[in-house]
């Protein structure tokens, strides 16, 4: 270990000297602004002067971030507006570590830290506390989830597990869409827009006040997306989409300890797609334009009670979603959910949160030859309880969070989802955090009782020596277990100065019991005359392995009116089927999520009236889907033409005419290309 060689000692001494000098330089430079001479004397300024000063810090974001022992990213209202995004999936493209790929005009594949797919089942999405994942496939119908974007306060995205607080399905991430309280939306807003892809859209909102304590708002919106194109053709695709939506929110907050919120939405949308389904008669496959519709509504009530050093909330909601897919499937789903939560300080260094929840899911579906679920009607009951304690040490510089969720579902019984998180505020501007957590992904209704006929192999065709057509079918399995994750995370944040902050988050995820499709013994169907052979691929839990990666995010306010934001996300997945697995599919679902994603955003204010934004993105290739990498440039400009009137124009994908982003899994709908688009909007605000 040690060396007595004088030459070595000399070089070590020299190295030490260099380090010492360097430390001196760095510390002197960091120490410099501590001297009061660098601070303008704000006490000599009048209120009017102060009110005219531009704030350049990243404030809210970093402040909140600095206290979280997790990989949190916040999209603000400003970010949404300036990006020109007109729906939630497109707004999510600015989140590091999230993979967003458009399948067609009305479908997306969105995932956090891998496993991307249209039916990704490891991401939990909430809108104002209402979970919007469907228990049908434990995923999200992205074309149903919408809000009036002008009323969004922020979208908080947590990469990594959030199961202790949010429960099963919060495996790889949680997306929390939070709308503003009604008090903050007390104006009338009308927007009208149109463009090459989104043909027309209008939003109307009105906010008002009843008596002294009640604020409310109501909104309505409509949009219509025109067709895109099929890959490598000029043919207009059958992927139109239009939606009509309305809703309200009322907040009653007298100055006592109690407050109430009541909110609800109704929606109706129609979508088109080009569907390929198998058939028992030649040519054994059928491709045709298909239509479908979603409709539904929800109502949510929340009661908050704050009293001496403790708060309680009770929330209830009911959500109804109806899907009518003309050629595949009809599904009616009713969800009732009730949640109670309390937080209190049992001592000055403890902050305890605990809660209880119950959810009833009622599903009612009609099947087709392609998709069938048994039973057609079912009701599921889920119970959950959680408790978490945040313990502060060392003058609150060190915070340890310990907690767990315990929940019961009808498929796998009790599930236990603990986590331990530690945040260390090294200095006022730097923090390190680490976490170990377990999350589970409980079986979806489809994994229990689905029959999805994915292909028919013609008699005598390759792989089918029989004289009957062979149906390759994916089947659910009552023995299907929950998928398991043990996640290790480590992150670092630094507010380098009040105009530059950086955030690094890394993870190693250890999965087990991941889903595979195991071939079973073929069955001859039909009696007395055999009609076909069913080749079953039964859901099983025979895959596991690790994924690792990280995300870097930087936010630099170059000038008071110019801000640059950049991010790099890296993902590596190495999953392996168990040796006893016979699942014939390629080994790795990794091929559907890019290894690398990079973006750079610029936000520039030109004077008081103009805003100019652009975002350059690089998304790596998807080898599993044979999709090449792509670069894109989106631009957005807005002009405050007069008091209350804002004009904006945005253009997406300026670098290339079109590109393909994804190929859907399970249900064979034709993917379409994302074209270069232009969209203009006028916003009129009346206070």
């Amino acid at each position, binding site marked *: 270990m040690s060396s007595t060689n004088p030459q070595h000692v000399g070089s070590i001494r020299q190295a030490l000297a260099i380090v010492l000098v360097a430390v001196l330089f760095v510390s002197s430079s960091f120490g410099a602004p501590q001297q*009061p001479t660098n601070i303008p004397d704000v006490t000599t300024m009048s209120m009017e002067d102060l009110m005219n000063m531009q704030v350049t810090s990243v404030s809210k974001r970093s402040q909140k971030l600095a206290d979280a022992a997790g990989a949190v990213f916040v999209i603000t209202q400003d970010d949404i507006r300036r990006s020109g995004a007109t729906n939630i999936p497109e707004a999510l493209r600015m989140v590091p570590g999230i993979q967003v790929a458009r399948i067609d005009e009305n479908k997306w594949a969105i995932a956090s830290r891998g496993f991307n797919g249209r039916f990704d089942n490891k991401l939990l999405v909430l809108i104002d506390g209402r979970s919007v994942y469907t228990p049908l496939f434990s995923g999200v119908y992205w074309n149903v989830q919408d809000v009036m974007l002008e009323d969004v306060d922020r979208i908080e995205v947590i990469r990594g597990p959030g199961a202790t607080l949010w429960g099963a399905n919060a495996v790889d991430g949680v997306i929390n869409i939070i709308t503003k309280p009604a008090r903050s939306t007390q104006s009338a807003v009308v927007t009208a827009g149109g463009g090459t892809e989104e043909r027309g859209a209008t939003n109307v909102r009105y906010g008002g006040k009843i008596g002294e304590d009640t604020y409310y708002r109501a909104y309505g919106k409509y949009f219509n997306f025109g067709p895109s194109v099929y890959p490598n053709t000029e043919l207009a695709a059958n992927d139109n989409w239009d939606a009509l939506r309305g809703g309200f929110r009322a907040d009653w907050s007298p*100055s006592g300890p109690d407050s109430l919120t009541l909110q609800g939405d109704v929606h109706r949308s129609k979508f088109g797609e080009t569907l390929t389904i198998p058939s028992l008669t030649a040519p054994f496959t059928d491709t045709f334009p298909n239509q479908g519709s979603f409709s539904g509504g929800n109502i949510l009530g929340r009661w908050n009670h704050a009293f001496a050093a403790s708060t309680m909330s009770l929330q209830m909601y009911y959500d109804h979603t109806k899907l009518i897919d003309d050629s595949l499937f009809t599904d009616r789903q009713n969800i009732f959910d009730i949640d109670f939560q309390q937080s209190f300080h049992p001592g000055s260094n403890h902050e305890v949160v605990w809660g209880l929840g119950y959810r009833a899911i009622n599903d009612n579906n009609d099947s087709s030859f392609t998709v069938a679920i048994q039973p057609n009607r079912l009701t599921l009951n889920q119970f959950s309880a959680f408790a978490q304690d945040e313990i502060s040490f060392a003058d609150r510089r060190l915070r340890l969070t310990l907690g767990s969720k315990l929940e019961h579902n009808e498929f796998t019984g009790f599930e236990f989802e603990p986590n331990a998180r530690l945040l260390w505020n090294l200095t*006022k501007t730097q923090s390190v955090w680490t976490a170990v957590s377990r999350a589970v992904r409980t079986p979806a209704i489809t994994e229990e009782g689905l029959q999805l006929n994915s292909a028919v192999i013609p008699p005598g065709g390759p792989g089918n020596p029989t004289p009957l057509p062979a149906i390759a079918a994916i089947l659910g399995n009552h023995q299907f277990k929950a998928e398991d994750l043990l996640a290790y995370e480590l992150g670092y944040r630094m507010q380098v100065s009040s105009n530059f902050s950086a955030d690094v988050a890394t993870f190693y995820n250890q999965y087990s019991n991941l889903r595979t499709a195991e071939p079973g013994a073929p069955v001859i169907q039909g009696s007395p005359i055999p009609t076909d052979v069913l080749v079953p691929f039964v859901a099983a839990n025979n895959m596991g392995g690790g994924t690792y990666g990280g995300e870097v995010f930087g936010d630099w306010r170059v000038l008071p009116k110019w801000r640059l934001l950049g991010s790099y996300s890296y993902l590596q997945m190495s999953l392996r089927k168990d040796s006893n697995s016979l699942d014939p599919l390629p080994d790795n679902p990794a091929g559907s999520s890019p290894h690398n994603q990079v973006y750079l955003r610029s936000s520039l204010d030109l004077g008081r009236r103009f805003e100019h934004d652009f975002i350059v993105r690089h998304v790596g290739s998807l080898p599993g889907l044979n999709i090449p990498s792509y670069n894109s440039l989106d631009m957005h400009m807005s002009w405050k033409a007069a008091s209350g009137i804002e004009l904006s124009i945005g253009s997406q994908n300026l670098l290339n005419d079109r590109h393909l982003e994804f190929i859907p899994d399970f249900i064979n709908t034709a993917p379409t290309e994302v074209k270069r688009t232009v969209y203009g909007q006028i916003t009129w605000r009346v206070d």
Partner: protein
Amino acid sequence: MTVRRLIILMLMMMLGQASRAWSQDAEASSEYLIKAGYIYNFAKLVEWPTTAFAQSDSPIVIGIVGTDPFGPIIDKVLEGKKVNGHPFVIKRLKPTADLKECHILFIGSSMESHIGDAIRLTRGTPVLTISEIPGFADHGGIIHLSLEQNKVRFEVNVDAAKEADLNISSRLLVLAKVIQQPSDGRKTE
């Protein structure tokens, strides 16, 4: 070897200079520097009842409870400053401390879920409560600071100020968004 070391040294120096330039720029325009200036102006434009000060040169006590977003900035801004003969004292308080001991109470954003308690604990005493928590003034807090278009704006709940026996200068009120909402929820006549 020496050349390499020299380069490393120069790089370090450049890095040091760059970070120094950065920090200076940053400090000059920080949000909380501006907000510290607001607090100084509030102290100047709000009149406390004479009973609030033991002597004519007793300090104006500024309490910060919950997350402290100011860091050392506010201490530096107010160091050696006086308003009507009163110097400033800044105290970082635990939520369990007696919040009535201050003249100005800044309630940090980590107190969001306990905002009702903080307001109740100071109700009827001459404490100027200030917070960035959304809806603060509507819930009976006196001054709510917010950011609009990257500028600091503020709301004043005049009923809550009246209850606290604080006299807010009209010079301040003309710049504020005025809210009338007594902390007990009853309508003012």
